[in-house]
């Protein structure tokens, strides 16, 4: 059932068997796992982009990509090859250094967030005991790279897009953190593995359904996806903060966006949907597959919402964030706290 753990143990034993010290072995293993995580994100990306294109096409009564590979599955890898062949253009008036590192920064934050996510029992790159805190901290730095891109491009459209990004992401960070707080209180731990373990009997979506909805809405805004994709603002800002980017730099932004999507959906699975725990005792699938199944269900929900709704206006977005989501999420924390207190009183 736990192929990856067995594989890790086998690899560890093999490297140790070559007469390398324990510390060095652990270093090598960490490097290998980091590579595996990056590969995981990239492979996921192919699936994700495929699902996005196919589901949007199906909703719009189209067929979607169907030329390359089975059912157009290889469209995205081929797209990346095409994008790699494009000329790398830097606008003459841009702040060249920041312009160039902005896309890489966005990519790094997306990858690094994956590090603490447990994909199965013991399958975690770095089992931090403040895992969720780390995730939130990393997630908020994503804002910065988008702002860098927006301002460094020296374009009015991307400048407005950058401004919007900051306003939107900062205001939606707060309800997102508050919504996660209720789960942390219930689980009594910041460690993601412990949080999953404490959901063995009941997923936290049941006591924390309001928090789940708040989390969902604010992560849609966090990841800049429709109907909250104001930073891109295709209709009025053309493409928002990356309007000047082309070729592979643009592709890296897209990869980062999807990487973020995987990360927030994984966190939603861990925090609310019971992580790798199988529902109703259906343990015939390995935990890893259950986890991925839940993540993809979440991702489909994101896509479904994106391809149904028109974009919301920025001032409505702000009002909604500050005047509705934050009070509700605060109330949720208070209610959760009272609930826990009452529960302890009853059970002694």
């Amino acid at each position: 059932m736990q192929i990856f753990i067995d594989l890790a143990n086998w690899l560890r034993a093999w490297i140790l068997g070559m007469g390398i010290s324990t510390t060095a072995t652990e270093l090598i293993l960490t490097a290998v796992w980091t590579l595996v995580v990056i590969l995981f994100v990239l492979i996921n990306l192919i699936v994700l982009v495929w699902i996005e294109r196919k589901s949007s096409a199906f909703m719009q009564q189209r067929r979607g990509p169907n030329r390359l590979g089975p059912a157009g599955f290889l469209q995205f890898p081929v797209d990346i090859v095409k994008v790699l062949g494009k000329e790398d253009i830097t606008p003459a008036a841009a702040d060249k250094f920041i312009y160039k590192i902005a896309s890489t920064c966005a990519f790094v934050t997306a990858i690094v967030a994956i590090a603490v996510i447990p994909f199965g029992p013991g399958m975690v790159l770095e089992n931090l005991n403040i895992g969720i805190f780390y995730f939130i901290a990393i997630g908020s730095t994503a804002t910065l790279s988008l702002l860098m891109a927006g301002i460094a491009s020296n374009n009015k459209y991307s400048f407005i897009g950058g401004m919007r990004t900051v306003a939107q992401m900062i205001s939606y960070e707060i309800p997102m953190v508050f919504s996660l707080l209720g789960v942390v209180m219930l689980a009594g731990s910041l460690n993601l593995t412990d949080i999953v373990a404490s959901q063995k009997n009941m997923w936290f979506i049941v006591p924390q359904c309001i928090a789940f909805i708040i989390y969902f809405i604010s992560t849609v805004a966090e990841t800049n996806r429709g109907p909250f994709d104001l930073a891109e603002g295709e209709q009025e800002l053309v493409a928002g903060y990356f309007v000047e980017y082309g070729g592979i730099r643009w592709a890296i932004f897209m990869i980062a966006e999807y990487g973020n999507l995987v990360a927030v959906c994984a966190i939603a699975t861990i925090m609310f949907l019971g992580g790798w725990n199988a529902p109703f005792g259906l343990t015939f699938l390995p935990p890893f597959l259950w986890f991925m199944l839940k993540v993809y269900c979440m991702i489909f929900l994101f896509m479904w919402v994106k391809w149904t709704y028109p974009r919301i206006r920025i001032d409505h977005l702000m009002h909604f964030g500050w005047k509705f989501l934050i009070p509700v999420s605060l109330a949720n924390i208070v209610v959760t706290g009272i609930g826990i207190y009452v529960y302890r009183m009853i059970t002694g």
Partner: protein
Amino acid sequence: MFGRGLIKGLGITLGHLFEKKITEQYPEERPVLPARFKGSFTLKVPKCIACGLCANTCPNSVIKIESEKDENNKKKLTGYKMMAERCLYCGFCVEACPTKALMWNHDYERAKFSREEVNLDLFGSYVPSPEDDQPAKSAKEDEESAQAS
């Protein structure tokens, strides 16, 4: 209640998710064209009497006709060129043709690499076919036969 429209919208998109798709797989699947479709032109040279009505009626002077008089002092076509690059595809020339020599065909793949290639030389590219010797049919009959085929 606020949010009912949002849920209804989700329902509509989900309903279409598993529906039959309407995209036409173009190069493999050819579109079914109506009989009157205006694609490109065919000129049945034996029928043409070089009267020049098509050239006269054209809004953009697309058509260039060359003709000479034969021994019976009858006009004979010696060249028929269409500057299709500035053609409006209005079809006035086809309507004007008294002998139904100029007709529409369903050749719609007219994209070419240069402007000169778009132009048609209907006289030079004419391939004789046995149908051309038959007497000219009226427009209605033509349409019926086109629909039957």
